[in-house]
């Protein structure tokens, strides 16, 4: 489904819906699952799959450690090129 969104360059997964309080997938599951998907998305430049309860953190495929982001708008600025 994601590869069909052809112009997609930023993807964010807020993994915990506000009402439940529990992550739907563990971080390990996400890290195992999502890289396969992103390889299919040709224009994707920025991903963030480590967002728990909208407390955004960066998780980069190049292995960079996550860091806190205070402003949600910053998440939408792609800083990392997949190439």
């Amino acid at each position: 489904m994601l590869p069909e969104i052809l112009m997609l360059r930023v993807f964010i997964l807020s993994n915990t819906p506000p009402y439940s309080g529990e992550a739907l997938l563990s971080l390990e599951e996400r890290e195992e699952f999502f890289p396969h998907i992103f390889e299919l998305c040709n224009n994707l430049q920025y991903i963030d799959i480590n967002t728990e309860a909208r407390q955004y953190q960066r998780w980069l495929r190049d292995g960079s450690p996550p860091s806190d982001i205070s402003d949600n708008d910053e998440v939408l600025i792609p800083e990392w090129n997949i190439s």
Partner: protein
Amino acid sequence: MKSLPLELLRPIVGHLKYDSDALLAVSLASRELRVEGQRNLFRRMVLASDHKAQIKFLTVIISSTVLAQYVEEFQQFELIDPMQQEKLEPLWSLTCRGLQAMVNLKYLFFGAAYGEPCAEILRGCTFQLEILRWENYYDAERLFEFLTSQRKLRILGAKWTKSELNTSDICPGLQVLHGNQHSIDAFFPGRHITSLKWSANPEELRIGGPIYTPPQEFDHLRYLSFGGYNGRPLLSVVYRYLPVLEVLELVGLYVIEVCLIFFCCSLCGSSTYSGACVAPRNPHASGLHPF
């Protein structure tokens, strides 16, 4: 101070816009500085649940046309007693008069309490908003009446409940929408909305409900935040209708979505994807129920 031109004075005082104590001191320092100090002091008013401060502020702007004209952003919550389900007085009456006095208001964020309808409070207001975030429910008819007068609105957040209202001629310049499926159906057609935050109502998620087809204008969407407090429809509802989408935020991820995506990857091979495994363009032919 009299020799300092306004072109210099205005940006200097403007730097203090988030420091209300400093702006208060500036406003009291001299007559020359008072105008610029008060212009910034009253420009943005967010008092949360401090009812005493709200009453003081509203009383001041009702008594001063000049100060009321400075207000460009106003956020108001908790106007209804949660226990008695009655309007809090004198706060309700003061807010009603205060809003009518804020003729230059551009941004209004309003929630009465527990989503109670209260759009009646907008009657008689003459401001032309650019941003409206309306956190009350079952307000569609009265809110519709207000929105007919808003020609400059760019950003609207509203949970719409009346799908039969004809909204085709209102808010022509809308660019950003926060709302539910009814909001989408009411405000997407005929407009060039590029950003959507879709927060579903519980009834949108009902099992066995009709399959939803988004309006044609989803073609313009560049930013989509999908999901909210109640959850969201499956991604399969929308992904075919987003030809220029650049930024996607998914709030939550369902097991069935993980399975479907994984299934597609298995079919295609992660490094040789060519689009061959995409689902049919006709959502009804896919066999996937979105809810």
